[in-house]
């Protein structure tokens, strides 16, 4: 009796020590779940989810403070991917945060109207606007994420949204139309 109690205690202490050592030695820095969630988000940094950017939103999801359906730029694809990652049910996009856009857009600055106030440069989350005070500004289109955050601050409304241009390399085959069951066939099936 005593021997077995002793053996168990010694074993427990031993394993405890090993586990404790491993916990210290192989400590994981940062939160890997946040990184994984962040990797699935579209990185527009638009703030439509009510958080300051994609990473803060990822942190909020990881903490359980935010729902997975608050990202309009990511849309259904992102929601499904997040649901898959977190093992929860996918749900439709919360319309409070906006609607999923059909086409991708970027912004352009009407360079004739621009007064060079730099307000849009300060608003751009990815430094995709080039310019200096009292100098004309322009958008680096290839870096623009289409977040539209630069539009509200512009005092002269010289920033416009345009759809992303398609070229031969970015062209996609359209999805075929799903099969249509005509009345004849459905009547035949029910008969």
């Amino acid at each position, binding site marked *: 009796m005593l021997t077995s109690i002793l053996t168990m205690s010694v074993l427990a202490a031993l394993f405890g020590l090993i586990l404790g050592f491993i916990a210290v030695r192989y400590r994981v820095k940062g939160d890997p779940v946040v990184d994984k969630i962040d990797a699935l988000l579209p990185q527009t940094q638009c703030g439509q989810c009510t958080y300051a950017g994609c990473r803060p939103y990822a942190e909020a999801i990881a903490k359980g403070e935010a729902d997975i359906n608050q990202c309009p730029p990511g849309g259904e694809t992102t929601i499904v991917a997040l649901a898959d990652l977190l093992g929860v049910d996918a749900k439709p996009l919360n319309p409070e945060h906006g609607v999923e856009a059909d086409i991708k857009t970027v912004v352009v600055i009407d360079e004739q109207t621009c007064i060079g106030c730099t307000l849009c440069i300060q608003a751009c989350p*990815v430094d995709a606007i080039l310019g200096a005070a009292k100098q004309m500004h322009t958008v680096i289109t290839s870096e623009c*994420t289409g977040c539209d955050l630069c539009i509200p601050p512009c005092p002269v409304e010289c920033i416009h949204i345009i759809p992303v241009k398609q070229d*031969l390399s970015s062209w996609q085959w359209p999805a075929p139309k799903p*099969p249509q069951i005509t009345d004849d066939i459905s009547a035949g099936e029910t008969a």
Partner: protein
Amino acid sequence: MSVDKQQLWSFHGGLHLPGHKAMSTQQPIGDVFIPSKLVLPLQQHIGEMSEAIVSAGEHVLKGQLLAKSGGYISVPLHAPTSGTVIEISKQVVPHPSGLSSSCIILKPDGKDQWCELDTHQRYQDMDPSALRNRLRDAGIVGLGGAGFPSFIKLNPGARTAIDELIINAAECEPYITCDDSLMRESAEHIVQGIEIMQHALQAKRCLIGIEDNKPEACSAMQQAVERAGNASIRVVPIPTLYPAGGEKQIIKVLTGKETPSQGLPVDVGIVCHNVATALAINNAINNGLPLISRVITLTGSGVNTPGNHEVLIGTPINEWIEHCGGYHDNVSQLIMGGPMMGFNLGDDHVPVIKTTNCILALTEDEFHRNKQATMPCIRCGACMDVCPAQLLPQQLYWQAFARDFDKIQDYNLFDCIECGCCSYVCPSQIPLVQYYRFAKTEIWAQERDKQHSDKARQRHEFRLQRLEADKKEKAENRRKKLAALNASKGKTENQDGKKAEIEAALARVRQKQSLKQSEPQNTDNLTAEQQSKIDEIDARREQTTDNKGPSN
């Protein structure tokens, strides 16, 4: 016919299709004609777009360089005839999207005057790498349809030599006969081109695979090989079965080797080239000619006189068809490529390009194209039986339908060669290949989006870092300034002290001066006694101030 009998293998699935080939092989290859204008897209090959080096208004000669390679996987573009460059602008190009792309528009002057061609040397004396450079400079791409730059495929890479060079002359798609007529008419030059390829690849042997529905081509090639006296080249007739001309399929049939999933033939020691490419290579090396024209089949019941013609690259299709006898009244559909793998052309003003092998004008009800309404899948499995890539087309269809793009890759979507056998046999008329094409481009788009978002994340993080650094720097500057201000305040106090000292000294001097100035004014008319008294006092005062001076 004395062709080698050798063991052949077979690939999974495949279809026996009605050939419709005889209609375009009745006449010899038609001569080149010069259209009223040539539209030369800068992207006629897989890889990066060529870069135009001519400008509008410039006069160019036939064979002159118009655009240079835009990167490693790219080839230059040459003028198909002499004339004037009208403009470089976006024009509709032959592509399923119907989109526009940059093109050089050339107005021929009708003189068809050659530029000076490179004097050629014997290929046997050329280093394989010099040979490849020569082929790249001649703008040669695979003429079978994909348009991959040939010089890259003639590089054995890490290997020093290739076991087998396979010449794909199967031409398995219905209607198309351009390779057939080329072999009938230019077998000798094709064999010379093959020998050049063998030299570049250091290939031990070469197999020419020809479907057995082309006996004339087969015997012409056989005779040419015998005349060349090259024992390492063999002409092998293979059974007619669509798609025997698929790269992986012809390799399987001729050698029994399986090209690995998502791998390249070079992984199993094989390189595969199209037979028309062999002729273009012969022209480039032995005659110094760049790729400026090719043989194209114009066929189908929708045209009056089907046949094969040598056509200048960039010839607008409508002008060419008009030149060759025009459309039949009941033409309903224009296809670039064959009926199985080609794509519909919405506009017949587009030019023919390096990869165009056939223009097919179909009438209503001609050939089996999905016309009826799509019905639901009945899970019959017919698609699986015919798939030459041994995939599960039905599973791929369900995953594409459900847009599950991760799952669909587990079913090896990217091994699909889009041959169209599954769509052809589907009793429910489901456009299966269209689903796979949709899924493939969607997956590529998602990958591009991922790269874009990764870049956006980096830029955003960098911006946050920069703002943070800016903030720190500002705070640091503020702190420094404050410290400097405090320090200078201390200094002013010191300066005040000094000022006070100076002030005091000045005051003393002024006092002294005022003392000196306060000399009595009534010193005129003094008596000698008074004067001596004054002198005495003055001397004494002088003495005291002199004594005091240094102590001051």
